[in-house]
């Protein structure tokens, strides 16, 4: 069986500096994978390589293969628009556009040429419901998304990604800029989404990783030290370094 996302021998260099040193870490369909590890362990670099957000950085060199449904995403004929529609991304800092909530959610669809108002209305409702923010915003969909709280903004950003129906959702520390209550709402949202989407999230919060993820990968110094079921990683890690990190002895 082919994996949904297959990564083999991935190296990333920033100039001369090797940030990722040969990573093999693949993903099946569904579930949440948490990427943990100390700061500077290149987990974000890894995440951003999966939807080619690293392309923009000057002096970056990427070698190895990343196959999405068997297709090499770094092949020259890859259409970035389609790729990023399939592999959506949510960032650390909530970044709604300075438009209305409604316009934020339909942004991707509208740009793809969707004009049918009924369909757009419907997508807005489903996406916001999936992102668990519908009840809070349904009465002011046409107000600016910037007027929402940080947690609500982040869930609108998740809805914006869901609206283009991706296969995979990448999250780069999605709750680290939020207060604990908003964080737990985001976590609940992600748990609801885990059956329909493949979710890969970078987090510095080990409790969060253990609460929501099915699988955990431990990164250190640009390498994946260990990847396994979350329970196994937290209860009975195979590597000393993983155990040290999880028990808070460094990092």
């Amino acid at each position, binding site marked *: 069986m082919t994996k949904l996302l297959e990564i083999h021998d991935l190296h990333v260099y920033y100039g001369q500096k090797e940030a990722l040193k040969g990573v093999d870490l693949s993903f099946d369909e569904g579930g949440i994978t948490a990427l943990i590890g100390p700061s500077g362990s290149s987990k974000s670099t890894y995440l951003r390589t999966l939807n080619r957000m690293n392309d923009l950085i000057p002096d970056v060199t990427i070698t190895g293969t990343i196959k999405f449904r068997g297709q090499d995403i770094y092949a020259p004929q890859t259409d970035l*628009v389609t790729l990023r529609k399939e592999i959506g991304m949510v*960032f650390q800092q909530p970044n709604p*556009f300075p438009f209305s909530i409604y316009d934020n959610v339909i942004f991707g669809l509208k740009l793809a040429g969707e004009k049918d108002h009924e369909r757009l209305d419907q997508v807005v409702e489903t996406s916001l419901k999936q992102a668990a923010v519908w009840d809070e915003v349904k009465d002011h969909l046409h107000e*600016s998304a910037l007027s929402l709280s940080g947690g609500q903004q982040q869930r609108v*950003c998740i809805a914006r990604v869901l609206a283009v129906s991706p296969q995979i959702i990448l999250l780069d520390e999605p709750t680290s800029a939020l207060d604990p209550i908003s964080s737990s709402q985001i976590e609940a949202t992600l748990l609801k989404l885990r059956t329909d989407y493949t979710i890969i999230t970078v987090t510095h919060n080990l409790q969060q990783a253990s609460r929501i993820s099915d699988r955990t990968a431990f990164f250190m110094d640009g390498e994946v030290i260990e990847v396994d079921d979350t329970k196994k990683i937290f209860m009975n890690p195979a590597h000393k370094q993983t155990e040290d990190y999880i028990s808070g002895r460094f990092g």
Partner: protein
Amino acid sequence: MNPKLSNRVAITVLYVIASTIVVILAALLGYIIISGLPALSWHFLTSPARAFTSGGGIGIQLFNSFYLLILTMLISFPIALGAGIYLNEYAKQNWVTSLVRTAIEILSSLPSVVVGLFGFLIFVVQFGFGFSILSGAFALTFFNLPLLTRSIEEALAAVPDEQREGGLALGLSKWETVLHIIVPAALPTILTGVILSAGRIFGEAAALIFTAGQSAPALNFTDWNPFNIASPLNPMRPAETLAVHIWKINSEGIMPDAKAISSGSSAVLVISVLAFNLLARFVGHRLFKRLTAG
């Protein structure tokens, strides 16, 4: 001197400096407006100027000022927007970019009378536009471009990078991100810059004396065909603006009420520029609120 005392001295000095500036501004504005106010009337604002007799107005000059302003903006805004987008979104940090930036800085520090003489040689003489609104608008474009470019560039730079990433992560190309997200997000600040520079253009005289000319031929305000010479919209007619009119009356005005007309024109000019400034604040603030708070 102990720290407490020196702190108090420093604050006092700063207060004095700040209030001196405010007092100077208030005195200047007060003098201009109070001495000009008696001359202001509907007749003054709408009727044409008279060269030898009293009772003339500034109607044509006022119209010319606004028309020239609009034309200048129509020419300079697209160029400045393009330059600003290029400099902030696309330009790499290399010698070409720093050359462009230096060129913009030099252009913005050119004295406006030099810009006017240059415009005279190029547009009036070389291109054969004559003393015309078009020559004036091009000269003012030179004068306006550097500051407008700079303010648009700064407005774009103030949009956080997260917005750019958000656009790209949705699969937008870089150009689509700029067009559909960054420029709209920067719009309130851009608009403020545009209105502020409009105030500067409105009050500019030196660059226009040799380009838009110093005469205000009679206009027929019922003729809106831009190809007719008497039409207000004709861009090829000479057009004395309000600021040039003030300069001219004071240097060679021979009408009996020259003093009153000059004071009245100055008041109108100052009030217009003030209005531009207030409008800039108001519109920018309103737009920002609409975008952020709904």
